[in-house]
């Protein structure tokens, strides 16, 4: 059972545009929501993360918006650059226990120059 649903599967934007990736989760016990960026041949790297007591978190050009009642969260990349071209994964985890990450299926972002 997929617990984190991510869309779209792929996304193409022009340089300078806004990239938006959406995720929805099912388990209301999740309490930590990170986004990972993965380049080909590399492992995922943490980009930004949010906890459900906050509705928005911004770090540079990257913003997470969180809607607890709708069980949805999204990543916004402002002023998208060709170097942002990568696969992005949303994830969720539970505090306590193993804190294993449950990942979405990923979004392949292409930013055209």
């Amino acid at each position, binding site marked *: 059972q997929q617990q*984190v649903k991510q869309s779209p599967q792929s996304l193409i934007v022009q340089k300078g545009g806004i990239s938006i990736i959406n995720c929805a989760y099912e388990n209301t016990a999740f309490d930590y929501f990170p986004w990972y960026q993965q380049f080909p041949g590399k492992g*995922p790297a943490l980009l930004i993360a949010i906890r459900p007591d906050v509705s928005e978190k911004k770090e540079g050009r990257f913003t997470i918006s969180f809607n607890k009642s709708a069980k949805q969260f999204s990543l916004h990349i402002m002023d998208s650059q060709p170097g942002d071209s990568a696969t992005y*994964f949303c994830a969720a985890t539970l505090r306590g226990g*193993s804190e294993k990450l449950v*990942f*979405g*299926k990923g979004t392949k972002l292409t930013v055209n120059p």
Partner: protein
Amino acid sequence: GAGVSQTPSNKVTEKGKYVELRCDPISGHTALYWYRQSLGQGPEFLIYFQGTGAADDSGLPNDRFFAVRPEGSVSTLKIQRTERGDSAVYLCASSLGTSGSVREQFFGPGTRLTVL
């Protein structure tokens, strides 16, 4: 400092063979995770170590998969009687622990396993 390292970077084996995949976590990280990433998918959790013990192995698909971390640092993922469906990238991650705010998991580059 050095990140998480994994060896080998690529492993090609034949169906039915035994393989071992190694993970060297970041020094001082007590928590270690193994994930499996199939083509076009997100990583899927396999097993979690806190120190030397496997605290959560609920993601191991069957008893052909086993992992150890005897000294609380390096970990080895072992796969017996490999099957073509085992082909994937096996990722290792480590973190300082699971208490407080030290939740970030740092991933290695992965080992790409191909079972012919």
